[in-house]
């Protein structure tokens, strides 16, 4: 099994995440698409680590997972705070700071 396929899968998942972020209006779904993109980058790191036989790539993925957990907690708290103020999570209607 060649490595190109793993990298290609990761590229496809990243692109689906990008399209999701650009098209959806629900803040939670946008956030989940960001998680999907993070995860596809993790897949790239793991596949390079596997082909080089190096443990450091996997440790970087481990730290990325920790940061993703922290990011999810804070991001969801921000979404709850936004919902309390605006009673919506539609990003087109959260336009207080929009030009």
């Amino acid at each position: 099994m060649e490595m190109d396929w793993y990298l290609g899968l990761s590229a496809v998942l990243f692109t689906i995440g990008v399209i999701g972020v650009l098209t959806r209006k629900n803040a939670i779904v946008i956030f989940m698409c960001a998680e999907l993109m993070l995860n596809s980058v993790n897949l790239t790191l793991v596949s390079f680590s596997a082909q080089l036989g190096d443990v450091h790539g996997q440790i970087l993925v481990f730290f990325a997972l920790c940061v993703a957990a922290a990011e999810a907690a804070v991001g969801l708290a921000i979404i709850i705070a936004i919902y309390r103020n605006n009673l919506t999570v539609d990003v087109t209607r959260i336009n207080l700071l929009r030009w």
Partner: protein
Amino acid sequence: METYIFILFATLAVASAVGMVASRDTVNSALFLVLNLISVAGIFLLLKAQFLAVVQVLVYGGAIMVLFLFVIMLLNLSDEENMLSRFSLRYTVAFFLGVIVLAQLLYAIASVTGTLPQVHPDMEQIGTVESIGDALFTVYMLPVLVTAILLTAAVVGALLLAQRKISSEKGKGSE
């Protein structure tokens, strides 16, 4: 055999990612994301990264997605239908931008096609809990401690942000 397992997991991952982006219900999106994360964990197993596959299922598929589902339940989103716009300029622009991103990524990959080796033979020993723990608690001791501080700060920050009432006098008084 490995190729078939890869095709199975890759199809599952891509299909669930598309389902996540396309589904109307937020809860369905979250469950599709769980399926996607678990199939990526299967691909980690194919790459002989056992520890990361288990951590992926436990932390991502377990903890983070439960957090997402709790928030979705908490917010009680009923006007979901209004958030799906009809076919519009937004979709075409997003589609073209997505095609451009995919083309860039595939171009970057295509330049190294055929030069990449297979899965390293030592990988069986490298992906285990033992070797990763060995590296984490010797070479990467300081980053592990910094991660602990980061997670504590994230928990405190999440509590502060999601608090019901943050009155301005209270915020000034606690300085």
